[in-house]
Each structure stands twice: as structure tokens, then as C-alpha cells.
């Protein structure tokens, strides 16, 4: 390898060249001569001794064995120690500059701090949203098993499944390690003479505690639900009943008759858990309380959320094929009527953001909102970066002399680039530190803004990420200024030939346009969001809810016994106009649905699944629901309770009955339970305005013991008097039962909690982005008017009016903002169309939105620069022209 050309010069062998080169590469320069000499000496020693062939190998071996730290390590050079001084100098200059150019520096610092704070807050929220339910030890192996139901008239997916799945799947399939059902129930819980309605009691299988990792504060997991009458409480519910005393082993009375032993205390489920509960009882108890026989064997319907824990690496596809095959074979009743359930799996950690099924959890998030806010977070960072770039380049002339002198003294361009990058990174680091403090103080109060408490768990790694992120931010912000400022030619700088403020003017202008485009797009978005929400809140729901009070008593027997007395007592007061009893038919939040055979226009029966409500004769009157055809249930027709049914207009359309009039007389159900349609109600929204009104069946109640809740139409002009009367009367008639009422309009508002929260978060961040953009504009206007001060002076001397001058200076900025409006319009239009598509009832984007967003942006920009323009225009030209 090495001896190739040595023979041409002299007949002397040389060591292998590549090894020699390798040595020269790794050896520290100050050691090289001595070490290389030594190896050569060995080499030629060997050759002298007639070991020419071995000499080469020994040389190579020597080169390799010398690859040691003390030979590789470079001597710390004179220059290196000097550069430490250079860094000190850079930091010193940075601080001096900060002081000298206070306005720009403070604007930068403010902008960066606001944007980093916003970014961190949004990021913490996103992190939380993305890590929902990840805290369970088996999270990766747990799946929910919802289904898609198909009948001849409709198809929908629901989060709940037949009860047999959770009871049996883990016994039938080896891949399913564990399974649990998760259902809801309510009950009156009594301790001493205090009784409360508890709404968030869950019924589960014993496996629930093995599959999910809840923190146990007291009790033994194995004993939790061993006995029928046992109840597990969360910490906060235990506190409600027992205060600071130990709740474990205590007894609570359920349903006024059943003594329940507290067998365990759990920590409250964390905010980032889809499963929320306050107390837990067993599935066996539910069987007794609900008097059901088929809870472990019924494969149809939608009763519970069912969770499966699969074996790691289980073949899910195969499993689901088998499960669906099994269920189809069990559900011959449905198959014969052309209905089917198709089950599928949802990974536990995927449900929060990516599931929107019927009967899904109300605390579900939205992947769309997460991506919207990710974009907003980065836009806000970008805006602050642009401010830095614009202000640094606009003020570059101030640094020109410094750059010129440094270059003459011998600074390399890379040194200068380094200097400006360090400056930008430094300011970002300071902003990040302030932002960190702000986040610390703001986070607790943002909980109610974001919808839940956020547990901030900071660790060393998150600080490392913050630090690295800030460095990157500093480099991004400082990159362009560093390259443009360091490019100044010393000669022209020192001769004063540099035209002030001209450097990077085009880029600066484009960046301002970019900034305002983003800001205006956000303003258009917030106007649209606002308009849509106002529309939703004021939309006619098809029912009158202004005066409705809703009372739920969970179908307690004692209340049902006194129905007539209560009704008569309340109607004695003029404030109460109408009272309706019904069962599970509160038109806000989740009606139940069931399957039924329906007669089509052609007289054929098809299968269908409809939402249904079970109500009394006063329901329509109380809720102000109007009839499209026929009549409502009436006491005049005693056969109504067994023979009649009403539907809504959506159902008429879905069955192809033509008109409401044609629907009258159609048959539903199979004999002996066949009913005749006696009336059609106009559509009213019972699912919120996200969804179209679904087909609905209105049934009368067969037995007055089935009622579970009441709607009261009452005069609420004096709410204290009306509610006081209600409370007094209730206490008199039902002293055992706590009165649990809500105002209907509040319930409806609650349906849009998510949207209202979205609006307020969006509003805050769009205002912040406008603020940041204006900070930049202010700095830019200041720098550029200062540089044109002489021009303005001369124009004034020559007779320009104040108005002329204001126009001259403002025009440039306003043109940029106007261009941004043009660019932002299609962007925002596209984005908001996507957002509005999520609503069944929506507004259309109107030109008014774009116009008002444009006016806001122009107005704010004008106000921002007005101080500078006025100052420049009104100043005495003598002052600006005298010097020189």
C-alpha cells in the first residue's frame, strides 16, 4: 500500500503512507514531530536489522497504539484562552447595547416573554391532552370495545356495548386478559339524617381495579367489591360524608334501605382520566337494584362502556373477527330483522382525542382543537421572532460602526455572526426565565380557563427541553440579523456611505406582511367563532326553555306515590303553569334509544333504532314543543298508554312517510305491542346543535311508577320566590328526598362549555398576537421615522403640511397591513370553513367578518404608529436640520 512510488526516487523503503497520514491526523501538532520521529526511528532500526517485512507491520501497530489521549489532546492554545475574553466582551457589548437602545430592547423582551409564556401554557395543555389516560400501568394494552349498529333505516356508532361482552369475553378468548364494564348509576345516599343524590356512582366488575391503576388510599383492592353491599369512595366523597374521620368500615345507607359498607378509599381520579367517578359499587349489586336477569348473558344493546385488557402483541384483527362472529351467532333476533352490531377496538389512550361516538364521555377532547392550538402556539412564537428580526435590522445602522471597527481590528465575519447570535440567544434566555416565572403564577388560574386542573410535573428533562428550545428560538430570531449586520463593509461604514435603514428593507416588509397576515387571520377566526357561538346560543331549539325548571328524583318510589299531591300543590301557585312527569327524557344530554319495527309508506315493516322518550300528557305543553300534525297524548284517549305513539319530523323523513299528515295512522312495533302514530311534533334539538335532529319516538308511560323526573314551566321573573315555593312544597310532600333541580337554560348553556372555552382561549391568544405584532410595528415605526427625520425637516421647510407628512409616513405601514388583509382573507376563510363544518347548524362566513377584522388591524396599526408619526410631523424642522 505504501511502497508504490518510493522506488522511483531512491531505493529506500518508507513506512505505509496511510498509517503515517493517520498519525499526522490524530496527533496533536506539538507532539507530532517527536512522536513521528520516534516511530520512524523504530521503523528504520528494524530495517537495518534486516526485518524489512516486519518493520511495516510494527509501524502500523505503533501508529495504532499511540492513539492515546495524551497524544491526541491538543494543547490549549493561546487563541483559545483569548476567546474567553471575547465572550466576556460580547456579553458586555450586548448589555451596553440593550441599555443604549432601550425601546427596541424592551419591545423585544416584552414580545418574546409574552410569546414564550403563551407557548408554554399551550404546550402544557397539549401535553396533558395528548397524555390522557396514559398514567395507567396497562394503558398500552387496554382497549374499549364500542360498536357500529346498522338497521334498515340507519347506521350509527356508539361507545357502549352489550353487557355480556364485559362479563364473558375474557373467559372465552385467551388473548383477552381482563375485562370490565363501566356503567353509571345514581342513588340517594344517607348518613344519619343527611341525604344526598349522588350522580357519579359507577358500577364495575371486580377486574376494574386490576386493569386500571387507581391510587388506593385505604382498604385492600381484593376486598373492595367482594361483598354485595360494599362501596368504594373517592377521597373527596369520603370527606363530604365523614370529614377528617376515617371512612373505611363505616356504613352509608343507599336507596333509603340498603346499608353499604365502605370498603376502600381511592384518590380522586386525575383530571387527565376519561373515567371519572365519585363512588364505585359492584355489578352484582346493580343486578339486584335494577332487577335484571340477563346482565351477563345479553349480547345486544348498549349498556356499558366495556374495556378489555389484551395480551401484549395480541392479534387484534383476528380477535375482532372471532368476537364479531360470536356476537352475530348470539344475536339471531337482530340478524333476522336485518340489524347488526359490528364491534371494533379503540386503544384507551386514543379515546380522549379521537372518539366522537354516541354516548361517549362528555370530557372528551378534540384532536382538531389540539392541532389548532399547536398552530397558534407556533404562530405566536414566529411573531415574536419576526419582531426581533425587524427591530435588529432596522436598527442595524447603530451597530455599523462597531462592526466596521471590529473588522478592521481583525475580527472575522464568523466572530461577528457569533456575537449577534449570542445576543439574540441571550435575550431569548432572559425572556424564557421571565416566562417560566409567569407560567408558574398563571397556571393555577388558567385551570378554569382550560377546563380542568393541570398538574405541572416539572423535571430536569423539561428544563433541558426548554433550554434547548430557547437556544433554537434565539438562533432562528438572530440568524438573519447576524448575517446581514456582519456583512457590512468596514470601508463604506467608516466613510459614512452606508444608507441608513435600507438594509433588508424588502425582507423586513415581507416579514411585517407575514406577521399581520397571521394576526388578521386570527382576528377573523375569533370573529367567526364568536358569531357561531352567539348563533348557537340564540338559535330556536324548537322548544321554549326559558321558564323550565328541571327536577330529577331518579324515579324514587316515594315521590312517585305523591305525584298527584305534588302537582296539585304546585299548581296552586300562579307561578307554576304546567308540570310534566317523564322518564329518562330530559332533552339535554343523552337520550336512550331502542330498536323497533316500523311500517314504511309501502306498508312493509323495516327495522330501525330510534331515540325515544317516555312522557306524560303535559310534556309538549311544558317544553313548548309544537305539533306538525295530529295530536299529543291526552287523558281523553285512555288507550293512548298502550296504543299510541308520536314521532318527530326527522323520523317522518327517515321512514319516507312523505308528510306529517301521511304519517298519522302508521304502525310501529310488532303485535301485541303495536302502536299507531297519532301525532308528529316539529323537530326540537335534544342533542345540541353539533348534530342534526335525529329521528325520535315519543311514547307514553305505561305505569306512573316509571316516572323519574319532572319538568316545571314556571314564572322565573322572581326566581327566589318561585324556587322558594318549590322547595317548601317539595319538603312538605317529600321530606325524605333531597330536591335536585336545575334551570333548563343553564343546562343548555353547559352543552356548549367546550366551545365557550375554545372561544375564550382563542380570544386571549389572538389578542396577544395582535399585541406582539403591534410591539414590532411600534419599534419599526420609531426606527424608521428617526432615520427619516432630516427628510421630514426638509419637506416641512419646503412647505409640506402636517397632514401631508403624516400621510407620507403612515402610508408605507398601512399599505403593508392592507396587503396582509388581502392575504389573510382566503387563509382564514378556508380554516374557518373547516371549523364550521363540525356544526350541524352553522353560520356562513360573511364579508362583514373580513371587513371588521381588516378595520381592527388597520385601526390598531394606525394608533400604534400615530405617536411616532405625529411627533415627526409636528417637530420643529430647525431641531432636525441644525446639526451637521
Amino acid at each position, binding site marked *: 500500500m505504501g511502497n508504490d512510488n518510493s522506488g522511483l526516487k531512491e531505493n529506500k523503503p518508507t513506512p505505509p503512507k496511510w498509517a503515517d497520514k493517520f498519525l499526522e491526523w490524530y496527533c496533536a501538532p506539538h507532539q507530532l*514531530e517527536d*512522536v513521528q*520521529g520516534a516511530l*520512524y*526511528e523504530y521503523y528504520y532500526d528494524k530495517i537495518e536489522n534486516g526485518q524489512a517485512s516486519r518493520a511495516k507491520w510494527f509501524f502500523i501497530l*505503533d501508529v495504532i497504539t499511540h492513539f492515546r489521549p495524551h497524544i491526541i489532546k491538543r494543547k490549549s492554545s493561546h487563541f483559545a484562552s483569548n476567546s474567553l475574553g471575547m465572550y466576556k466582551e460580547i456579553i458586555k457589548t450586548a448589555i451596553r447595547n440593550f441599555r443604549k437602545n432601550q425601546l427596541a430592547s424592551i419591545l423585544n423582551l416584552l414580545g418574546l416573554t409574552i410569546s414564550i409564556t403563551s407557548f408554554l401554557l399551550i404546550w402544557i395543555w397539549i401535553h396533558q391532552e395528548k397524555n390522557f389516560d396514559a398514567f395507567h400501568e396497562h394503558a398500552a394494552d387496554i382497549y374499549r370495545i364500542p360498536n357500529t349498529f346498522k338497521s334498515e333505516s340507519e347506521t350509527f356508532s356508539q361507545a357502549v356495548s352489550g353487557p355480556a361482552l364485559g362479563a364473558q369475553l375474557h373467559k372465552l378468548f385467551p388473548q383477552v386478559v381482563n375485562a370490565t364494564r363501566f356503567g353509571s348509576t345514581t342513588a340517594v345516599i344517607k348518613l344519619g339524617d343527611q341525604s344526598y343524590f349522588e350522580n357519579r356512582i359507577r358500577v364495575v366488575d371486580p377486574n376494574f381495579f386490576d386493569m386500571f391503576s387507581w391510587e388506593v388510599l385505604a382498604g385492600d383492592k381484593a376486598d373492595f367489591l367482594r361483598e354485595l353491599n360494599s362501596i368504594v369512595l373517592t377521597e373527596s366523597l369520603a370527606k363530604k360524608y365523614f370529614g377528617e374521620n376515617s371512612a373505611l368500615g363505616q356504613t352509608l345507607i343507599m336507596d333509603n334501605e340498603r346499608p353499604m359498607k365502605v370498603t376502600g378509599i381511592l384518590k380522586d381520579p386525575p383530571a387527565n382520566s376519561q373515567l371519572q367517578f365519585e363512588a364505585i359499587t359492584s355489578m352484582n349489586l346493580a343486578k339486584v337494584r335494577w332487577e335484571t336477569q340477563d346482565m351477563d348473558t345479553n349480547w345486544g344493546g348498549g349498556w356499558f362502556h366495556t374495556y378489555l385488557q389484551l395480551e401484549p402483541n395480541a392479534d387484534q384483527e383476528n380477535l375482532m373477527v372471532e368476537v364479531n362472529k360470536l356476537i352475530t351467532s348470539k344475536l339471531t333476533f337482530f340478524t333476522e330483522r336485518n340489524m347488526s352490531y359490528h364491534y371494533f377496538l379503540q386503544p384507551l389512550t386514543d379515546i380522549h382525542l379521537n372518539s366522537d361516538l354516541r354516548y361517549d364521555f362528555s370530557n372528551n377532547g378534540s384532536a382538531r382543537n389540539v392541532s389548532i392550538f399547536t398552530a397558534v402556539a407556533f404562530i405566536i412564537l414566529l411573531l415574536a421572532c419576526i419582531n426581533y428580526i425587524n427591530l435588529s435590522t432596522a436598527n442595524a445602522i447603530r451597530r455599523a460602526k462597531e462592526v466596521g471597527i471590529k473588522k478592521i481590528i481583525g475580527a472575522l465575519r464568523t466572530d461577528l455572526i457569533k456575537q449577534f447570535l449570542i445576543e439574540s440567544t441571550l435575550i431569548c434566555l432572559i425572556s424564557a426565565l421571565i416566562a417560566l416565572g409567569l407560567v408558574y403564577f398563571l397556571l393555577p388560574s388558567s385551570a378554569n380557563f382550560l377546563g380542568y386542573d393541570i398538574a405541572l410535573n416539572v423535571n430536569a428533562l423539561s428544563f433541558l427541553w426548554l433550554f434547548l428550545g430557547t437556544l433554537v428560538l434565539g438562533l432562528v430570531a438572530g440568524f438573519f440579523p447576524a448575517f446581514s449586520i456582519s456583512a457590512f463593509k468596514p470601508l463604506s461604514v467608516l466613510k459614512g456611505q452606508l444608507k441608513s435603514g435600507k438594509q433588508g428593507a424588502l425582507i423586513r416588509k415581507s416579514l411585517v406582511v407575514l406577521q399581520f397576515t397571521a394576526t388578521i387571520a386570527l382576528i377573523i377566526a375569533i370573529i367567526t367563532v364568536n358569531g357561531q357561538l352567539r348563533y348557537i346560543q340564540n338559535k330556536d331549539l324548537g322548544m321554549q326553555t326559558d321558564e323550565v325548571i328541571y327536577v330529577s328524583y331518579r324515579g324514587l318510589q316515594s315521590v312517585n306515590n305523591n305525584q298527584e299531591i305534588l302537582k296539585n300543590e304546585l299548581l296552586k301557585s300562579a307561578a307554576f303553569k304546567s308540570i310534566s312527569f317523564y322518564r329518562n327524557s330530559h332533552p339535554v344530554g343523552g337520550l336512550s334509544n331502542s330498536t323497533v319495527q316500523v311500517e314504511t309508506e309501502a306498508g312493509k315493516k323495516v327495522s330501525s333504532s330510534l331515540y325515544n322518550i317516555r312522557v306524560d300528557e303535559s310534556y309538549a305543553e311544558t317544553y313548548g314543543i309544537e305539533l306538525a300534525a295530529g295530536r299529543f297524548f291526552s287523558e281523553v284517549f285512555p288507550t293512548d298508554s298502550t296504543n299510541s305513539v308520536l314521532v318527530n319530523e326527522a323520523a317522518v323523513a327517515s321512514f319516507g312517510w312523505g308528510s306529517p299528515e301521511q304519517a298519522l295512522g302508521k304502525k310501529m312495533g310488532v303485535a301485541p305491542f303495536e302502536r299507531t302514530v297519532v301525532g308528529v311534533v316539529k323537530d326540537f334539538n335534544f342533542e345540541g346543535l353539533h348534530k342534526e335532529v335525529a329521528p325520535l319516538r315519543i311514547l307514553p308511560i305505561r305505569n306512573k311508577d316509571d316516572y323519574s323526573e319532572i319538568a316545571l314551566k314556571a314564572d322565573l321573573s322572581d326566581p327566589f320566590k318561585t324556587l322558594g315555593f318549590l322547595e317548601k312544597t317539595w319538603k312538605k310532600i317529600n321530606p325524605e328526598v333531597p330536591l335536585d333541580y336545575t334551570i333548563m337554560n343553564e343546562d343548555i348553556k353547559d352543552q356548549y362549555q367546550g366551545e365557550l372555552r375554545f372561544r375564550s382561549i382563542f380570544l386571549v391568544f389572538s389578542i396577544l398576537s395582535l399585541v406582539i405584532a403591534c410591539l414590532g410595528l411600534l419599534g419599526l415605526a420609531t426606527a424608521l421615522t428617526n432615520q427619516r427625520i432630516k427628510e421630514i425637516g426638509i419637506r416641512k421647510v419646503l412647505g409640506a403640511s402636517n397632514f401631508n407628512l403624516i400621510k407620507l409616513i403612515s402610508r408605507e405601514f398601512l399599505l403593508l397591513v392592507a396587503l396582509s388583509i388581502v392575504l389573510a382573507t382566503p387563509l382564514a376563510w378556508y380554516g374557518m370553513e373547516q371549523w364550521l363544518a363540525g356544526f350541524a347548524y352553522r353560520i356562513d362566513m360573511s364579508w362583514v367578518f373580513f371587513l371588521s377584522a381588516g378595520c381592527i388591524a388597520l385601526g390598531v396599526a394606525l394608533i400604534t404608529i400615530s405617536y411616532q408619526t405625529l411627533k415627526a410631523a409636528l417637530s420643529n424642522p430647525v431641531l432636525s436640520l441644525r446639526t451637521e
Partner: protein
Amino acid sequence: MKGTNLGEFEELVLLIAVARPEEAYSVGIAKIIDEVTDRKVVHSVVHACLNRLLKKGFLSSEMKAGSNKRGGRRKRVYTITPLGMKTLEMVKAQRDKLWAMITPA
């Protein structure tokens, strides 16, 4: 570096540098160690040791013209410093003291 501690190998190298000043460069020292102790040493080990002694201040060095074999490269020649000399003497005195305690059998 821990003060004036002198390892066995370091002591050997230092002694050779005093005893044979004309051979007091890395290759020369390595060869003498070969001759005297009859143990094969690798050059890089000797070099590392010399480096260490330089750092401890027991040796000083100077680049001097080398032989033809080195391809015209100079060699680093080491001379003992007063501190080195003193340390060597101290080590010898300690050894002598201990030898004196040994009663001949």
C-alpha cells in the same frame, strides 16, 4: 497529578534520564529499559510517562536535532529538573532507610 508521588516506572525513566543524558529521548529511554530490565516496553507507554513527568515538573524538555533515521525530524530531549533530582534522592533515602532496618539473616 498527585504531588510528588513517583511510580516505579516513572522512577526508572527518571533515573535513565539522569544516568544517560545523551540517550534521554523517548526511543533511547525505551531501548535502555529494554537492555537493563529485560522487559519489552511499548514506545507509547514511555512517551505517556515522559509526558506525565513533564507535567509534574520533574523533567524539562527541548527539541534537538535527531538522527537520519528520523527523516530529518528533531527529537524531544529531556533533562531532569532540580525538583526531579530532589525527588529521586528522597526516594533513594527512603529506600536506604528501609534497607537498613532489615537485619541480615
